[in-house]
């Protein structure tokens, strides 16, 4: 589970209520509500799930079950610079896994985690449609092609300071 403990502000709760109300507080709309909430907060901390559960008249356990079932939902906030490594077939055969391992080593985090300073988060994805550039890495909105493990340090350097 997420170790992050947050206290919601009144406007956060109002926002969640507003999202739930836009789906008529209907428990069937849980996934849509979670989508919108993640869009707003960037992630779905336990406290947000509790308010959603209360609003939609669902158990918190049920909401948590759905959040953990779909890999799209996350309980940890993304870093300021989210890093995604493409693990699609083309990137994979050209060594994406080694690139990913290098990022893990350099940042000291696993896929799905965020660095302690909140700067970088790491995720893998399947094919960004730039197979000619394999292996591909995305940092924020920027795309890096033909990345080798040795390039990782330099890429991270660009975001220093």
């Amino acid at each position, binding site marked *: 589970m997420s170790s992050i403990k947050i*206290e*919601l502000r009144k406007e956060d*709760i109002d926002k969640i209520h507003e999202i739930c109300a836009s789906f008529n507080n209907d428990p069937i709309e849980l996934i849509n509500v979670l989508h919108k909430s993640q869009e707003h907060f960037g992630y779905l901390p336990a406290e947000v799930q*509790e*308010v959603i559960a209360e609003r939609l008249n669902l*158990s918190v356990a049920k909401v*948590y*079950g759905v959040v*953990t*079932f779909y890999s799209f939902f996350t309980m940890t906030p993304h870093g300021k610079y989210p890093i995604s490594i493409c693990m699609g077939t083309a990137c994979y055969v050209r060594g994406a896994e080694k690139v990913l391992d290098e990022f893990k080593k350099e940042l000291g985090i696993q896929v799905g985690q965020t660095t302690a300073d909140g700067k970088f988060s790491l995720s893998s994805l399947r094919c960004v449609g730039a197979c000619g550039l394999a292996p591909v890495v995305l940092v924020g909105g920027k795309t890096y092609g033909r990345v080798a493990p040795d390039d990782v340090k330099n890429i991270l350097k660009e975001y220093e300071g």
Partner: protein
Amino acid sequence: METVKLTIDNKQIEVQRGTTILKAAREMGIDIPTLCYMELHDLNIENKPGGCRICVVEVQGRRNLVPACITKCEEGMVVRTHNPRVLNARRIVMEFILSDHPKDCLTCAKSGHCDLQNMAVRLGIRDIPNQDISAMSTYRLDTSPSIIRDLDKCIMCRRCEMMCNEVQTVGALSAFKRGFMAAVAPAFEQNLEHSPCTYCGQCVAVCPTGALTEVDNTPQVLRALADPSKTVVVQTAPAVRAALGEEFGMAPGTLVTGKMVAALKALGFDYVFDTDFAADLTIMEEGTELLGRVGKFLKGDKDVKLPILTSCCPGWVNFFEHNYPELKDVPSTAKSPQQMFGAIAKSYFAEKINIKREDMVVVSVMPCLAKKYESQREEFSVNGNPDVDFSISTRELAAFIKQANIDFNNLSDEEFDRPLGESTGAAVIFGNTGGVIEAAVRTAYEIYTGKKLEKVEYEQLRGMEGVRSATIDFNGLPLNIGIAHGLSNARKLLDDVKAGKSNFHAIEVMACPGGCIGGGGQPLHHGDSSILKARAKAIYEEDVNKPIRKSHENPYIKQLYEEFLGEPNSEKAHHLLHTHYFDKKKKIIVKQ
């Protein structure tokens, strides 16, 4: 009704459209093995996620095998339930399930009662290829006062989830994550103690493996019995005597009151008493409270809280503390019989035999797991010394008797000790849904009307329907009574009370389906609800066999009031026998 004809294992059968292959086969006496599937027919409870795939069968013309529990019969279907292809597939499915299951059967709490173990035997599994799990569970154990969760043993049958969410509407458990990581847990994988769990134990009652088991308190009881400086007193709840025999091969519904007493004496308890005595006491206190509130209401008091709600069931108490804290001064303040017994044993009785409360150990035998939690509530202790030291379940008592090499089936009947072992028929029926309120009516009627009740049985309060209601004529005063068992049914009545729409004067709630006879600590029914019906029948039989059937006529209860308590709802009675409730609803914290 539209029917379809099909062939199962070369035999023709005609069934209603919509019937599953599994049910059609069972009608024909063909036993297709199941693991996740469970049906409690009389209680309208069914679990069929179609998840485990043990029940696969071959349907002619279909490429893949189909799960019998969720596949509906169709006209002209030809089904094979046990041909070589099916047997082979079932074996592979079982091997896959076992490949991800710990192998500590020797010391597992469920060993001998485990559906998974039984299935491995039935399917002749002798080897488990593809093992990728250590012999012992590696995930942290979640130990609460009542229930232990060992997630590595979860096979995702989802029976507990169905019980917790649909039957009980407690919402403590849900499936989370997927694949090998999937399991059933409270929100954010917290321990049960931080969830809205009521400890009703219905999840434990249906868990096919050792993933959910009760906390075993028999080692502490054994230590107390072995300590010569302690006087060890035991009390037994009404529903235990109607089910304990099942653990020794007796038919469901066999009453074993006398043998149970003999076994407890053989185990070395100094005094073998009866929770039924305290049930009679509960009626005196709760019945008086009921009449007091109704009396005030009739005099036009607008602030009086009605309906009065029974408070014997600790799972139910936990449920309203979590879900309806705004109604926490509506239930009766009377403690449960278990706690009344403890309070009286460690005051009145300890004085009588001239020992200090610290030198007395009170053990309870309960059909219930929530009773373990209840006995540990802070308000039920004096200077850290609990009124009830240890609560063990019917299952734990059976295991204890077996460990002590007592030949239970051949024991001669013995009688409860006096004074706290004497009870009436009214107390016995506490074990069934509707029993507490029937017992209360028997006493309240005579006190209110001053007339003798000729017929003590109230058939209109009995039965297995989830919500029942009846109006009892109190000599011109119609008393409206509601009954619910299973917490989803309680919720229906509670929502009316909250909305101010309830016309009832009194409502009885039992958390477990069927009442205490179906409690989470009873011998496992393995999905056979006829067992619950047999137990209920046995309880009513015991009532008929009792010479006294009204609580206020129990001579030792009268003596207790004369010698010690004064009168029902006296100051001393309030101090010892009444309690108050807490708001346990989780609050959402807002940053200011």
